[in-house]
């Protein structure tokens, strides 16, 4: 095996592992990381295929930008039941695998049939024509594919516009000033400051332990309302309080 073969089998193997990881991971974040892994390996394969420029772009655009956007959205969306791997549609998984095998079989058949004896011309000549890979790509982009290049600008504008339309939340009132906010707060008649924190004497999960007022009685405001409604407030055992005092005492 020569060097390129090593690269192919290692990076190619990793790419497939990453792809399988994408499909098989239970957690969406893991999937995203797996696919980023695949893309980095693909970048290596690009370089191995005499496409150093694309390899770089792959790392920067795909792994760096696109996948991070995915991760970002995943963080926004959070974890939900859709991450689960349990199939809810009857027969979907079986048919998916059958069709997948069929598709793969046909693709491999076609590729094998067409390319078994194909020789590789190599890009040395093509790159040399313009003095390098980047120059060659640049020349093509700005000559033969100029219209495509210009049309992609429409695509990028659309993307920006679309994201803004769907995500940008415009204010329909003026932003309230600090003064207005504080006035509003005091005028509302509710407790203006922080509520007392619960459970200063707790020994475990403290949320259900009410705070004590200076006179030793409990402060109901320190307890979340649902707990209060359910009657799940931990009783204050003054004996314990005294115990603590005793411990504290020298």
């Amino acid at each position, binding site marked *: 095996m020569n060097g390129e073969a090593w690269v192919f089998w290692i990076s190619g193997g990793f790419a497939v592992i990453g792809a399988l990881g994408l499909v098989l991971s239970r957690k969406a974040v893991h999937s995203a990381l797996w696919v980023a892994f695949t*893309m980095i390996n693909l970048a290596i394969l690009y370089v191995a295929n*005499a*496409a150093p420029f694309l390899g770089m772009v792959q790392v920067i655009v795909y792994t760096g930008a696109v996948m991070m956007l995915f991760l970002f959205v995943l963080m926004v969306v959070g974890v939900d039941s*859709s991450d689960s791997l349990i199939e809810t549609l009857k027969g979907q998984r079986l048919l998916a695998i059958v069709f997948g095998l069929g598709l793969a079989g046909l693709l491999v058949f076609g590729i094998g049939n067409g*390319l078994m004896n194909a020789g590789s011309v190599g890009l040395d000549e093509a790159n040399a024509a313009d003095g390098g890979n980047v120059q060659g790509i640049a020349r093509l982009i700005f000559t033969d594919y100029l219209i495509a290049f210009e049309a992609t600008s429409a695509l990028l504008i659309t993307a920006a516009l679309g994201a803004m339309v769907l995500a940008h939340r415009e204010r329909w009132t003026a932003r309230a000033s600090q003064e207005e906010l504080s006035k509003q707060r005091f005028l509302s008649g509710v407790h203006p400051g922080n509520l007392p924190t619960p459970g200063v004497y707790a020994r475990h999960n403290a949320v259900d332990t009410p705070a004590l007022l200076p006179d030793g009685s409990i402060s109901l405001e320190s307890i979340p309302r649902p707990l209060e409604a359910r009657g799940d407030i931990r009783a204050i055992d003054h004996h314990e309080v005294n115990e603590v005092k005793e411990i504290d005492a020298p």
Partner: protein
Amino acid sequence: MNPSNYVILSAVLFTIGAVGVLVRRNAIIVFMCVELMLNAANLAFVAFARMNGNLDGQVVAFFVMVVAASEVVVGLAIIVTIFRTRRSASIDEPNLLKY
């Protein structure tokens, strides 16, 4: 190295992506699978570029990345919108339109 190896690898990745679209329920993962399919196509383009001895394939792959980037933006915007409405990123859950 025979270019068909790369292309067969790309076919495998493409198929894994396609199957992933069919079996995963999280819209974001489904979308990542689509991206994987595009990447597979790119790999094929790059391998073929070398095989054919011209740079057109690489240029196409470059454009595909641009297109994919814009597609990602639009797609994620749509998915986030749906998520904000339904509090779920499941692709199965919006199921009012049928029959």
